[in-house]
């Protein structure tokens, strides 16, 4: 079987399984699946920046939070329509990413990482202190899940978790598909070129800074989407969404799953959410155990879970070539 067919089959199987979750699983599993998908959207978009373009940002929590607050404030002041709210959240995140990105993409490596970290911390303290607008340390609470009204007066309720699940699933599939297409596009190749050799990219006629800004804003948009969906899921927007510890999540998840594939951050996200829920039941220090897992992956399996497994698989299929 060709690799492409195999990947398509795997994607279809996962999609089918995801569609079945609300009918077969309990409330808690549905909730966990939604958290995994949210982190998946966040990480898969973020990995366009990290894995594809080779830029390490520690500030994407800010865009996640911008998405959540954007949706929340839009709900309070304009309309509670969930689709419009999500759009407002994404637009807010994009605007913030444009601002932060313009400042940061002039630099690379550690300077870029530290600048994004600084911007993220400023965003956090804004959400924390601007009590009049953001609700301060309480955050915005009581965000509603109004029914989705479409053209022709059809109303789809998303109030229950079993209903909202499909709302999340829709955006999850959309995001994964979009990132998949971007990775295979000319734009995706140009980004890989920038990661491999930025100077040569300039001598290939690629305006490197503008591409960096574009992918920064794009990954910010995915972060905003994930944030606005979390605001709907948890009925609130919290300043800690912008905290640097949250910004680190897509980094950890990409390392865990593998940065070079589309599936890597998704698998990493599933493991991360799973461990965060299950490990604390038997021990208090879940971060210790997660740290050990990460240590093993980074020291022994650079390609992450997905990279290592697919290398093993290739070996099994074509033993002679190794």
């Amino acid at each position, binding site marked *: 079987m060709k690799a492409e067919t195999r990947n398509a089959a795997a994607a279809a199987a996962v999609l089918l399984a995801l569609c079945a979750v609300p009918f077969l699983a309990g409330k808690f599993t549905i909730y966990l699946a939604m958290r995994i998908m949210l982190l998946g959207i966040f990480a898969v978009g973020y990995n366009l920046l990290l894995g594809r373009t080779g830029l390490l940002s520690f500030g994407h929590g800010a865009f996640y939070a911008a998405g959540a607050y954007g949706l929340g404030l839009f709900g309070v002041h304009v309309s509670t329509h969930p689709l419009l709210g999500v759009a407002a959240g994404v637009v807010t995140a994009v605007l913030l990413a444009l601002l932060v990105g313009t400042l940061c993409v002039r630099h690379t490596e550690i300077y870029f990482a530290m600048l994004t970290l600084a911007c993220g911390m400023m965003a956090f303290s804004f959400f924390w202190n601007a009590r009049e607008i953001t609700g301060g340390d309480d955050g915005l609470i009581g965000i509603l899940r109004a029914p989705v009204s479409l053209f022709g007066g059809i109303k789809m309720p998303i109030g229950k978790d079993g209903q909202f699940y499909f709302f999340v699933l829709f955006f999850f599939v959309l995001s994964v598909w979009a990132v998949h*297409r*971007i990775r*295979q*596009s*000319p*734009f*995706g*190749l*140009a980004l*890989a*070129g920038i990661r*491999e*050799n930025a*100077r*040569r*990219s*300039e*001598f*290939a*006629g*690629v*305006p*490197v800074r503008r591409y960096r800004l*574009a992918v920064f804003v*794009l990954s910010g948009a995915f972060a905003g989407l994930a944030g606005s969906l979390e605001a709907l899921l948890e009925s609130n927007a919290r300043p800690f969404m912008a905290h640097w510890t949250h910004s680190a999540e897509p980094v950890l998840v990409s390392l865990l799953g593998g940065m070079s594939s589309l599936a890597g951050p998704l698998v990493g996200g599933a493991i991360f959410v799973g461990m965060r829920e299950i490990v604390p039941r038997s021990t208090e220090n879940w971060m210790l155990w997660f740290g050990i897992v990460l240590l093993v992956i980074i020291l022994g399996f650079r390609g992450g879970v997905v990279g290592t497994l697919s290398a093993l698989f290739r070996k099994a299929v074509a033993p002679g070539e190794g």
Partner: protein
Amino acid sequence: MREPLLTTEKLSNHFGRVCTALDLDLRFEPGVLTSIIGPNGAGKSTLINLLTGHLPVQAGKIRFRGRDITRLPIHKRVRMGICRSFQVVNVFPELTVAQNVMIPVLARTGRAWNPIRRLSRETAVLREAEAILTKVALLAERDTPATALSHGDLRLLEVGVALAAAPTLLFLDEPTAGMNPVERVRLLENIRQLAREGRTTFVVVEHDMDVVFSLSERIIVLHRGEILCDGTPAQVRADAKVREVYLGDDVSDLFRYEEK
């Protein structure tokens, strides 16, 4: 006199107290295959770096087809038709050979911004990339990652990536460094052929004197950032100053490069 492609006016550059370019007034005319030679530290690479935008110009002016490009960023110069290859191989290591040459083609045709279209559907770009790989004799390796190529093939790819930007003026910085004699002859034949086609004007920095004198129509000799001599190979060979500072240690130079 023909309209020059590129001219410089009093172009200067210093690294601390070391002068690598001093009031250089140069003209490059279309179709004249030019070599730049000079002992180590003469300012050959610096000159290329200045002309292509790799180094910011400290003093002087650069014009390309009459337009002032002194402060233009690299990618804009490339779009105007100035490109270069590097002395040390400088390609996209984890990408395949075909992808390496596709990036400049995509950038040139303005297609690199498209985030949705599948790369495999860009048949015109693929065909152009293949044509370039045929020129540098790398078509058979099209799906090999650049890291897996031999040194000689990497040097060919280096030139291929530069050619893919379809430059009108192409600077090659020691294109045959570290190549074996067979590969060297093949690459030089290629350059000669491409120069004859006339779309690209080549300016070559080279250490191998056999290469320089057999290939060039014009030779510029640099020494400590200044032009020592500028003329046809015959003129340069006859120049007393050049013999003194440079051709005298020609033999030792050659040996040093064979060892690499």
